[in-house]
């Protein structure tokens, strides 16, 4: 893998730090009146998800990370792996529980997810921003209530639990924002 000089740093560049592939979020050059310049860099560690700051000496090189992102459709879970497919090449990729992590509860068959691969292996699965899921369990609630009150918990077909307005019933399909885990609307089926 190529090395990158701090001069090439920019948002989205993938580098190795602390033995882990990382993505640069922000890069700022700082320089005293006379003397060495530094790059203050905010990075996201792609496996642990941690965001940390690092200060590099400007002009130094840092090892690049062999990281690619693929848009793949979710197929099924065989109990151990979650299988995804490239809709154009039909190539399949299997991600383990560590890579899937929290995304598990938002995986809907045929939905296109973003998979991050490090040296060919999936390390992260990003579900679509919005998914549609069926409500499998929730209190019957009161008729005629509006969305204004605190709502009630509802369990969805994937096992995810979200707060929904009181009028939402079992069997209905709802749209959820996977970034916040919040109910967006009911979906007419």
């Amino acid at each position, binding site marked *: 893998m190529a090395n990158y000089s701090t*001069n090439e740093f920019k948002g989205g560049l993938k580098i190795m*730090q*602390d033995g882990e592939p990382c993505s640069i979020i922000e890069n*700022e*050059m*700082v*320089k*005293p*009146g*006379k*003397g*060495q*310049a*530094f790059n203050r860099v905010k990075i996201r560690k792609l496996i642990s998800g941690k965001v*940390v*700051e*690092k*200060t*590099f*000496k*400007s*002009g*130094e090189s840092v090892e690049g990370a062999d990281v690619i992102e693929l848009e793949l459709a979710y197929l099924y879970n065989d109990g151990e792996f979650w299988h995804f497919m490239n809709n154009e090449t039909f190539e399949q990729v299997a991600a383990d529980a560590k890579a899937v992590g929290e995304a598990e509860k938002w995986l809907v068959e045929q939905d296109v997810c973003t998979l991050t691969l490090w040296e060919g292996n999936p390390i992260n699965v990003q579900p679509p921003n919005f998914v549609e899921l069926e409500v499998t369990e929730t209190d019957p609630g009161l008729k005629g209530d509006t969305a204004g009150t605190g709502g009630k918990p509802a369990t969805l077909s994937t096992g995810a639990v979200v707060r929904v307005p009181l009028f939402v019933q079992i069997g209905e399909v709802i749209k959820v924002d996977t970034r916040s885990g919040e109910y967006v609307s009911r979906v007419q089926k």
Partner: protein
Amino acid sequence: MDWRSQASIEVLQQRAELMRRVRQFFYDRKVLEVDTPALSQRGVTDCHLENLVTTLSADATGQALELFLQTSPEYAMKRLLAQYKTSIYQLSHVFRDDEIGRHHNPEFMMLEWYRIGFSMNDLIAEVAELLTDCINAPATDIITYQQAFLEHTQCDPLTAAGRDALHQRLKQRDDTASWMQAETDTDTMLQLAFYLWVEPNLPADRPVAITHFPATQAALARLSETDDRVALRFEIYYQGIELANGYDELIDSAVQAQRFAQDNELRQAHSKLMKAPDERLLAALEHGMPTCAGVALGFDRLLMIATGADHIAQVQPFSVANC
């Protein structure tokens, strides 16, 4: 297309007004305005400064001529000082390669001035007056580099033990350990320590002059006659921004030649191209430069403070992103 300026018309008006005030400030003090060329046949030797370079296709004798866009008008102004022995100032565009950031644009405006017969402290007092006069800054605090380190890190940067302790701490920090382990350049280590521990803790509500930098960071300042570990160099910080850098000027031609040579040794150690020393500056010093103090102040940063801007592009008509 991003053809529009990021600076508002109000900021451009303030920019014009600030230039007017600066000129008035020096006119009132009978300091001569000069405008030396942006181009020079010699560049800067400082290891951490890079000129932008251009080539004249043919000079008066028909030869191609490499020309350096000036990183500061210092050398040219010093030649005028040696020749005419009068205080001078300049507001000019300067150019630096590899410098882009919130407080950096490769082309920016420098306010630089030299005062005959002034000591470092006299000049700090005058910078403080200018800050009050031009942007209503409160009185300037003065603290030595050593004192600032002692206050904020409890380590003395002028002793080997203090520097070792700082280095150890940097080796243990998660955000710097990866390269600090192998770092052998003491000044790089000190500059990082200053940036991480001293700079963020300087008072922001008033300007602060940091004085007496280590002799190894003297740049073009004279060394102190009472303590040769330090140079008569100062920096001004205000609202978290490094605003100005000044010296009790080195006027000894032989010492200046040594500094050029040391700069080039450092360049070689950093695998950077060596630079030919400016022999015209050396000749001027040989002729005799009067005792003086000089300072360079980032005009755009001054305007950033005056307007509360958080990026230099907001106070320049155009920046490198859309020039």
